[in-house]
């Protein structure tokens, strides 16, 4: 059990580093999703199912969707004239 927890923690740290150093922003967000899922698993191990459900729905769900949509919006804005904002 302790070994599993340590492995998961190491994986978390690995995910965090990978998310920070990833070259592609979309990849960053995907790694962040997996980070959130692993965090949810850890919270199950810590006997906090309330937190695990919330983190899985918020971290891996809504936050990531927001990130994807924002990235998409940013890339769509690429062609827009810069001074359209007054």
């Amino acid at each position: 059990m302790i070994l599993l927890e340590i492995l998961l923690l190491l994986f978390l740290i690995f995910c965090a580093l990978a998310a920070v150093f990833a070259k592609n922003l979309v990849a960053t967000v995907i790694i962040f999703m997996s980070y959130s899922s692993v965090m949810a698993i850890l919270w199950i191990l810590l006997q906090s199912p309330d937190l695990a459900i919330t983190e899985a729905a918020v971290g891996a769900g809504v936050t990531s969707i927001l990130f994807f949509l924002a990235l998409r919006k940013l890339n769509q804005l690429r062609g827009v004239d810069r001074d359209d904002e007054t």
Partner: protein
Amino acid sequence: MMKHDGKPQHLFDRFMRWAEGEDPNQDREVAEDPERAEFIEYLEYIDSHEFLDFGAYRLMRYRERKAKGITQPLPHSSGQGQSVVISQSRIPGRRYRPGRLRSLIRLYRIASIFVAIVMMVTLLGVVLVMPQFGDPDAPAVNEVSERYLEQGVEETGAINAVTGMILDYRAFDTFGESTVLFAAAMSVILLLRHPGRPAATEGSGDLILHRMGMLILPAVMMFGIYVILNGHLSPGGGFSGGTVLGCGLILSALILGRSRMEILLPSKRITKLTVICLLAYGVMKGYSFFTGANHIGWDIPKGTPGAIFSGGFLLPLNICVGIIVGCTMYTFYTLFAGKEE
């Protein structure tokens, strides 16, 4: 998939294209924009040097641009007639001084690396002397948490001690938290909504998404509603269930397309629903704070612990929180998914 010289298009590629705001079914076109090229070049440079770039590259580009005589790379925003008047009367200010900026940036980076390392070492020192992990005699296990666990069922009617705690014992925090969410939703609306423009109509014609979505959507919605309604009996509650519900709403918007979703749930109605739920929450909790503090009789029946209708205000509170959270998540989605132009 139709005109790709017979090359199969991977799902990931399609996803990447979608994420970049292109139509995944179209061929990729790269616009020749010098600004963008410079930007990409810069990003590539940053990527290869990551943390080691002390602003040097930026400086190089700036000098080059200056040498070419492009001192005014940004056409500034029109529509501020007054500012033109100012600009003539103003004495020339200090110019942009690259050297100073570079040293500042270097100082800032070195300082922040230093701060981060110091912080890490300190915190490691702190956690090693803290009460041990999993220790049943840790200071945090005291009369406060004992009462939540031992008398929570009689006092709040909730079997789930966490729900009992956040919605009854420490309800003021939770009201503040819902207000945070409301404030964030209002802020994002203020930042991203353009009232003059119609909502984007973006029907998704993707067959896989449609079929699969239709398959899992009822399950997601049911799960969300279950988690909300059983918040005081099982793990979960308004926040987790509301988020799941929000995901369900987002999924249905993806399946049906924004235009149809706008007919079903107009954004005005979403805001109104959020406001009404938050008000209901505030009034319910305000009533119980007032009666509690003034020791006026408290006559909301608690019900049998374990039954769905138990726990006094907990069930309606959970429903309110669930609706607030779900609607807020959906509002975030609509605002971020809406096209600008």
